[in-house]
């Protein structure tokens, strides 16, 4: 049974990464009890997946009988095709990194809005208190969290599409 599951995971690379590799990363960061590193580790997951795919492509290219060599064997310019594949992977990595920057900025603003919501109010302010302060902070908190989630989901979508293509070629018989 273990052999069957192992074989299935080998042919479903993305599921293998999702089920085996990344939970190990989360567990290790958790065990180290580094609270700030935890958010960095979680936010870097889509980018990690880009480099995993780059590693897979580079590892496969070194092997002359690798899946990418076989896939581009009918082409008259196979080596240029391989370079283009690596270039595309770098393009995906840059795109995901840019999204990650936006996502991290929104994550920080969300945490700052949470802190502002929970900050002690000065009771002496009375009528000088800001209008709709808690409503506005709640609105900003929701907005930053929403943008963070959208950015994170878009990163995963880009990586999913790329990894799907890479995994399909690697799984070719």
């Amino acid at each position: 049974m273990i052999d069957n599951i192992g074989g299935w995971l080998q042919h479903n690379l993305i599921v293998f990464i999702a089920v085996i590799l990344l939970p190990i990363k989360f567990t290790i960061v958790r065990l180290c009890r580094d609270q700030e590193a935890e958010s960095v580790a979680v936010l870097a997951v889509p980018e990690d997946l880009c480099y995993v795919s780059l590693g897979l492509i580079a590892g496969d290219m070194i092997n002359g009988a690798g899946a990418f060599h076989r896939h581009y064997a009918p082409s008259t310019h196979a080596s240029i095709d391989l370079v283009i594949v690596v270039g595309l992977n770098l393009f995906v990595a840059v795109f995901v990194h840019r999204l990650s920057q936006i996502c991290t900025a929104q994550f920080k603003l969300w945490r700052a809005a949470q802190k502002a919501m929970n900050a002690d109010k000065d009771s002496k302010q009375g009528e000088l208190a800001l209008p709709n302060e808690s409503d506005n902070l709640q609105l900003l908190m929701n907005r930053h969290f929403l943008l963070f989630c959208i950015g994170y989901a878009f990163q995963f979508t880009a990586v999913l599409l790329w990894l799907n293509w890479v995994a399909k070629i690697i799984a070719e018989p």
Partner: protein
Amino acid sequence: MRLAIEIVAIYSLYITGVTIILKRYGKKDTLPMIVAAGAIPVLVVVSFFEAIFLMVFRSAPRVRPCPEGLDVAEMIVERHRQEMFGGETQHPKFAFEWARVYALTLERETKTVKNFARSFLPVA
């Protein structure tokens, strides 16, 4: 079938990531926010089609007026962000942009009403 399994795997990674973030850093309403975050990818797809529908069947979306004090609240959040994470001050523009878009909407509506009135009433 294969793509469906992969989508489920990546979606579960997204949910795991957001759950860890919310459990670790969320101050309140953690569970409802996890549910909301889980629905966001679906909502993004639905919103995309809704935006196309609105573009085809309506001229422009309605904009509510910007809440009073939103710009000050933005500055407070920015100050907290700087205290927590450092870095240069970034001038928030959300409230400013909202007020600007609302003003433009009002201007457009006023023009429409004026044109409508002019077609009925004689201009002095």
